[in-house]
């Protein structure tokens, strides 16, 4: 009988004591599997066949094959998530953009004001304005965080907390008459920014002569053709004769007109006692839908 003496350890050698084998496996399972993967990768590089690998490692051929399959099977590539697929992600992304843009706005506003502040009084006034704007932005973020993404809100309910803030930080009372007006939360938020600016202007330039508290009334009506008309009137001494929205250099009016433009609307001054403005906006929800469609087409 011929016996072939291999220089390699016998395959059955270790299996002779299965208990010991198992405990080693448990103790060093992780290390072993990593070691195994690395050795197998090296063997693959060397161009060994599974049979040879089995012979050199003393592992059953089936184990080698199984390990090789897991090595060779491509691992899925993590693709960037499509925000549209997960509403929670989309919401987070929206919030991130909003925060980044607000901070950029705040920094730009402060720089802009700092260029124009030529006296201590002017600097003080600019800082007070800046604080009032930051208050409004902070409130806006809190309100948006509470509102469902892309959802509709009641304008009166949305404005409520803002009006309280404005009474505190600006010192103007706001009366809101917008029965049954609902619109996209993002549009409602922008209206809040406009109200804040006009309230600041009313306190600064148009205090009522009789010493009464500065009060603004906001009336909002939705018209048939998908338009929202907003009338904002204060009880002050009115706009200057030569006042023009276009020529107004104050940051407040720049913010008001650009916000209205951003919403695709128009603004004009009205005659009468006190400063009065008429803002016409395309109906909130439709405006945002068209912008979103637009984005989708072009991305």
């Amino acid at each position: 009988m011929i016996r072939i003496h291999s220089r390699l350890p016998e395959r059955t050698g270790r299996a002779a004591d299965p208990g010991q084998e198992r405990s080693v496996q448990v103790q060093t399972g992780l290390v072993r599997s990593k070691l195994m993967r690395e050795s197998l990768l090296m063997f693959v590089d060397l161009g060994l066949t599974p049979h040879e690998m089995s012979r050199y490692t003393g592992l059953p051929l089936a184990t080698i094959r199984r390990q090789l399959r897991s090595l060779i099977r491509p691992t899925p590539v993590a693709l960037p998530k499509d925000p549209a697929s997960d509403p929670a992600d989309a919401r987070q992304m929206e919030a991130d953009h909003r925060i980044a843009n607000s901070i950029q706005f705040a920094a730009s506003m402060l720089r802009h004001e700092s260029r124009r502040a030529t006296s201590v009084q002017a600097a003080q006034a600019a800082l007070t304005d800046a604080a009032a704007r930051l208050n409004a932005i902070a409130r806006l973020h809190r309100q948006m965080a509470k509102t469902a993404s892309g959802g509709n809100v009641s304008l009166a309910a949305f404005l409520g907390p803002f009006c309280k803030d404005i009474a505190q930080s600006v010192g103007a009372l706001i009366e809101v008459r917008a029965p049954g007006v609902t619109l996209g939360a993002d549009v409602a938020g922008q209206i809040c920014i406009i109200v804040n600016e006009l309230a600041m202007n009313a306190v600064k330039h148009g205090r009522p002569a009789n010493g009464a508290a500065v009060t603004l009334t906001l009336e909002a009506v939705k018209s048939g053709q998908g338009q929202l008309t907003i009338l904002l009137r204060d009880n002050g001494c009115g706009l200057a004769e030569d006042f023009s929205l276009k020529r107004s250099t104050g940051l407040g009016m720049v913010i008001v007109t650009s916000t209205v433009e951003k919403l695709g609307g128009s603004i004009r001054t009205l005659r009468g006692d006190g400063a009065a403005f008429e803002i016409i906006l395309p109906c909130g929800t439709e405006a945002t839908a068209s912008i979103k469609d637009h984005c989708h087409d072009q991305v």
Partner: protein
Amino acid sequence: MIRSRVLLAEDDAVVAIDLARELEAAGMVVSGMASSLAETLELIDAATPDIALLNVRLRDGVSFPAARRLKALNVPFAFLTSFERSEIASEFRDIPRLSKPQVSSVIAEFVRHLAETRLAAIRRRGPGDINPAGHSR
């Protein structure tokens, strides 16, 4: 000294005003300010700028069509945006992105760098090629 003409597309008026002042302080001329994609495209057609700075989200949509036009005209530009790289169309992966919020003097510095790189390239190529795309069409 040649003052580079910069096109600024930004939908936030206050940010745009501040940036324009900062760019002018850094020695450039703001040749146009746009808040919408339509305005941006009009301005590019009216007079090709030397450099452009684009926000991705403009009033009426994203600025990618304008970016495409600038690329075709060989105008160096950068995005100024709160968008992550993954949110920008892949054809613009090679375009520098300044992420918002960003200090406006840093932005101005970067735009000036773009302008100087462009001028240096023109000097190397010679004055005959100063406007490869033509200033006005």
